[in-house]
């Protein structure tokens, strides 16, 4: 069974370590915050200028001056701190954020990522994505394995305009966990009940399948 978006987030949450500072992108990555394992404390960074992002406010408590990078109303947690956008990207560029999770349209077997622009469609902009992928020490892409047409999003080369080059380390899709290695995508785990054959058929880029491939655990 392919994972739901919530399950993708849940699987990514297992990559969190105690004391991590984490930047979660819009979409599936945002959901990761709902699955932080017990006993693990992480601080969420929002690139519009907040460390220590809390959950959505209770109805009626929304504060227009307190939003996240997705422009959603949020809250703070004890130990939160606000800063300006230059410092925000400064700490990202300096490698102080331990983990970045973001979505993608395509990832190449060399770790290139395309996520911001589709030729012929109206372009909304890259926001902070180019800064994040170029700077972060550790990036996980959260995405569906194939696009709405059923085509693989894990390619030899990205076909869409790039967001960054050779920057993605790990990918969690609805059917697999993969690591970007010198020899292409290395299959680490498969979704429960999903066959290696299915993953192979849905992966256009070079795929390394070595030894036993365990099913994901939650």
């Amino acid at each position: 069974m392919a994972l739901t978006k919530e399950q993708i987030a849940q699987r990514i949450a297992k990559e969190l370590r105690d004391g991590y500072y984490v930047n979660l992108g819009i979409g599936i990555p945002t959901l990761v915050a709902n699955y932080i394992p017990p006993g693990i404390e992480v601080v969420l960074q929002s690139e519009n200028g907040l460390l220590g992002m809390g959950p959505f406010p209770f109805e009626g408590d929304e504060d227009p001056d307190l939003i996240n990078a997705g422009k959603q109303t949020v809250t703070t947690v004890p130990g939160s701190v606000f800063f300006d956008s230059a410092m925000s990207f400064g700490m990202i560029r300096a490698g102080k954020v331990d983990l970045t999770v973001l979505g993608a349209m395509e990832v190449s077997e060399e770790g290139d990522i395309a996520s911001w622009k589709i030729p012929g469609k109206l372009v909304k902009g890259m926001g902070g994505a180019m800064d994040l992928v170029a700077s972060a020490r550790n990036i996980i892409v959260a995405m569906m394995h194939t696009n709405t047409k059923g085509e693989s999003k894990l390619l030899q080369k990205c076909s869409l305009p790039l967001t960054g080059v050779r920057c993605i380390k790990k990918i969690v899709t609805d059917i697999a966990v993969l690591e970007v290695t010198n020899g292409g995508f290395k299959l680490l785990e498969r979704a429960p009940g999903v066959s290696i054959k299915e993953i192979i058929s849905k992966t256009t880029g070079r795929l390394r399948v070595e030894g036993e491939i365990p099913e994901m655990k939650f």
Partner: protein
Amino acid sequence: MNKVVQNADEAIKDIQDGAVLMLGGFGLCGIPENCITALVKKEVKNLTCISNNAGVDDFGIGLLLQKRQLKKMIASYVGENSEFERQLLSGELEVELIPQGTLATRCLAAGYGFPVFYTPAGVGTEVAQGKEVRNFNGKDYLMEYAFDADFSIVKAWMGDTHGNLIFKETARNFNPLVAMAGRITIAEVEKLFPAGQLDPNIIHTPGIYVHRIFQGSNYEKRIEQRTVRKRK
């Protein structure tokens, strides 16, 4: 050292057609609402606006778009605005998209007197076209230039007559950076105090960067994405 002007109209009175403006704010958070309204009223045209976003159809920079006062928009993300899309597709409006961290740092560079800086953002992408690429410690960086704008317009929470500013929560965002970067910086504040009333330890923007200040009024502070939890 009194930099107080009466209102937004007076603050922006010498902004002429064709001016290059920088505006603080992220989405609709921390935007200079009063000055935008005054710019609409003044009907200045052919503006170049540098700001992280372009507002929504009927709020923020969107109000200037409605009146076709913009020639060019420099931003990192411009979704949520159908009039913007229409003008862009029809060729009425020029758009330059730049990475958010690069946008922030081009302000910082102007305020700190750095002519250029190097960032890895955009290396290997179309953003790198025409730019110097240079390798330091095994990593490639793009050379980016400091902004040079005629006017900076920001919104702060509190300010004093010397132009010292304090921002609230994530309404800080680009505001202190934009404030540092303009040749003339205009600040509108929710609460204006006499000099000496703000704790000098907690000021975000020193008044030396601010040329005009006024207390704004009727802040709408529209929320773009109202996301809430149910109370138990």
